[in-house]
């Protein structure tokens, strides 16, 4: 069986690092699996923008990228994919990226305890399974600070819409 290394990261922005109870803004999830010598898959689901109220709680002088998330997150995805060593060995590009956004940063990559369970490599099933898992995290990317909602007469949807973008690559 092919050995697999895997990691799941929660990307979040802590609005005040000095206070434990300060709001934490969910930004995205990064998922990676690397079957040494066989294949590698990396996926990122992220919010395209923060709400106005969320942005008001961000120090954008220090973190200007938070007001224009989409290109920033797309670049981070590319950085993780191209991280030195991640294409040849069983290293994980996401680990290299996460080290750069350690807990000393307001924007953090936090390792999720939930196992990815990528299993052995199956050319038909593996990528689709990981993609499905990644999409499942959309529900955890709702804004935490929003303007009061004024109810209008309209038929309720079965599921709330979340404004997210999904990127994935396999090789």
């Amino acid at each position, binding site marked *: 069986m092919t050995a697999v290394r895997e990691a799941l990261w929660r990307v979040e922005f802590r609005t*005040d*690092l*000095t*206070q*434990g109870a300060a709001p934490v803004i969910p930004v995205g999830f990064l998922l990676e699996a690397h079957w040494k010598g066989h294949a590698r898959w990396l996926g990122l689901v992220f919010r395209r923008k923060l709400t106005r109220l969320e942005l008001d709680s961000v120090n954008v*002088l220090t973190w200007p990228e938070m007001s224009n998330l989409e290109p920033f997150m797309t670049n981070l995805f590319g950085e993780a994919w191209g991280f030195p060593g991640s294409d040849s060995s069983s290293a994980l590009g996401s680990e290299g990226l996460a080290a750069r956004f350690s*807990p*000393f940063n*307001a924007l953090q990559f936090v390792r999720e305890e939930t196992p990815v369970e990528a299993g052995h490599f199956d050319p038909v099933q593996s990528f689709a399974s990981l993609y499905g898992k990644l999409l499942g995290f959309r529900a955890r990317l709702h804004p935490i600070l929003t303007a009061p909602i004024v109810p209008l007469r309209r038929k309720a949807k079965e599921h709330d819409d979340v404004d997210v973008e999904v990127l994935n690559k396999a090789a």
Partner: protein
Amino acid sequence: MSLRKFAPTAASYEDNWFDNPIQDILVKIVGQYSATADGACPVELPGGSMAYMKPRPDTQKNLVVAREKIAADLAHLLGLPVAPTVVKRPNPADGACYHSALSLVCLAAGRTWQNGGQVHVASCFEALESLRVFWSWIGDIDHNGHPGNLVYQVTTGGVDVVAIDHSYSLCHQNLNDPLTSGACNGYQTEHLPQSTEVRRKQIAAIQALDATEIERLVRRLGEILTIPEQDRILGILDVRSKALIKMLKMEGV
């Protein structure tokens, strides 16, 4: 002008942690240990403020903790932006079974230097060059441009910095030779205009420190440092203080 521009909530800890170096503090661990040499993990203090706790269980203990504490206390004396630190006693209630260093989180929007700090050098060069002299004094070898050991934030008033992680200091690699490490390279401030003046002032401030106060700061850590360890650290600080001018190439400047 103060170089310590910490969050307002830090003020209530600074003097207390300086005056009471070893304390019983119950913390709540809220994250994982980092993969760095000694490891640090975020913890919440009883009042809701945040700190980082080190070292990780699988690393060296008391000397690491003592170096962190001594560096923070000496920086406090000099008014330099090093995160206030306290020694936490073991407490089975929070899972800490050995003495740890708690390093206060001081910047609300912190960002490590590697994530864009270099473009702000001119705005905070006084703090950085002062720190470089300080690191040179204490024999710190982990701030030679280290990307993760300096945190900054930008505000309308300028750029604030806080130095973290001083466990690789006080000649940790060779305790028998106080001059085993040379001057610290810091963060590319050495050749900036006015840096010579900043350097001169900081050397003078270090050499003017009261030796009995430095001795008191080290000796009071007897709970985690043996007498020979205390003697060695005091010897290192004394020798390096006298060598600072030569070390930083300030002879005749």
